[in-house]
């Protein structure tokens, strides 16, 4: 262990912390956008007219069949072409993640919506809620609540996946650690440290999921 230089980690902490913030921001925003879009896709898939059902099914299957890294890469080139001006790598990565994650959240929310019993649907309609109100006030909140552990697990995966943004040179936590590693020539220290940080964050997340699942059973 004598060759290890832990000072390099301490010295680069502020820089690494900025990277971690980017990772968190990306995770959080993509989670919100992906969940919103995914929920809409799930609703279309279950109750929509045939064309929307097909659209949703094709969307989900296409995005689940291509590697995320390609999606990130494409959007980096595609978005500026589509809107005619550069958008920056954070925005293009955020769009890529949101659209990609939506495919997974759509499947989770579909399971969640189907987990709400027919009796509950009847009960909401019976007090006079319109189908839309029933979805909003009765079905979705329960679907969402039933799926919280799964949604969180998917969020942990999303957080790990954000490390892929190195392909578009976005300085998230992983890219920052990698930069320090190369500049300082301290590959072992930095990559070990990066692994430790990812592990601690994701492990705490998993423990939280376990805790929530236990509470649900009880």
């Amino acid at each position, binding site marked *: 262990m004598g060759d290890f230089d832990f000072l390099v980690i301490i010295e680069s902490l502020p820089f690494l912390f900025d990277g971690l913030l980017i990772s968190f921001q990306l995770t959080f925003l993509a989670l919100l956008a992906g969940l919103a879009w995914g929920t809409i896709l799930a609703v279309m898939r279950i109750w929509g007219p045939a064309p929307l059902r097909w659209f949703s099914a094709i969307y989900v299957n296409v995005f689940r069949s291509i590697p995320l890294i390609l999606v990130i890469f494409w959007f980096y080139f595609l978005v500026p072409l589509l809107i005619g001006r550069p958008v920056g790598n954070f925005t293009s990565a955020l769009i890529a993640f949101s659209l990609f994650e939506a495919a997974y959240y759509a499947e989770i929310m579909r399971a969640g919506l189907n987990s709400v019993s027919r*009796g*509950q649907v*009847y*009960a*909401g*309609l*019976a*007090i*006079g*809620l*319109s189908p839309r*109100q029933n979805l909003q*006030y*009765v079905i979705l*909140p*329960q679907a969402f*609540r039933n799926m919280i552990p799964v949604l969180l697990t998917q969020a942990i995966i999303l957080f790990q996946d954000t490390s892929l943004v190195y392909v578009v040179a976005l300085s998230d936590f992983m890219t920052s650690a990698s930069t320090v590693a190369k500049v300082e020539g301290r590959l072992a220290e930095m990559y070990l440290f990066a692994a430790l940080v990812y592990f601690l964050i994701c492990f705490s997340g998993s423990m939280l999921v376990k805790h929530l699942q236990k509470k649900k059973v009880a």
Partner: protein
Amino acid sequence: MIKIDNIDKWYGDFHVLKSCSLEVERGEVIVICGPSGSGKSTLIKCVNALEPVDSGRIVVEETDVTDKGTKLPLVRARIGMVFQHFELFPHKTVIENLMMGQIKVLRRSQDEARQKAESLLKRVGLSDQADKYPSALSGGQQQRVAIARALAMDPIAMCFDEPTSALDPEMISEVLDVMVELAKEGMTMMVVTHEMGFARKVARRVVFMDQGEVKEIAPTETFFKNPESERAKEFLSKILAH
């Protein structure tokens, strides 16, 4: 007040309701019974259009429920519905369960809805449970909340689908008491139940259903003493044996 006129309903190629007709007068309590699978729940769900019919008409106080142009939410809000498994909203507290429809459908103010909810909870003897979640209540309590939730919409009629059959025996009477009281106040009620004591106490007529048909409609005592059909006799001997 509720006029079910020759309705037919199919689930795929299963004929679940066969030319059913039935009229319920204002203030009348009618009990519907019959073997499992005879279509009682389906019939009662058709009354507030939770299930569509394939032919025939159902008119509730001048409103044709089966007409495509009818605004169903407002009709449904005026017909209270109580289910076998209570179906309280598990993510809402008891009082919120009673307020949701008032606010979202009847557009009452928060204060007005709360007041109404509180007075109804008091009426079913559950004032002290207002802020709990349904899962913290016993079955009997949950069903009383469900009745209060339906009453919060100021319904012109109430439908009950086996309201006591999911309850432990010792909780049945607390729910029946609330229903008897409602009946005495003149509420129009359609009640699917096998509680024959309840039927004898408040129902003027009993409807017997079998295999999707309304087999018999008779005054309560006549039905118990002298059922016309063999099927009804058989059915009565089974449930009265308990």
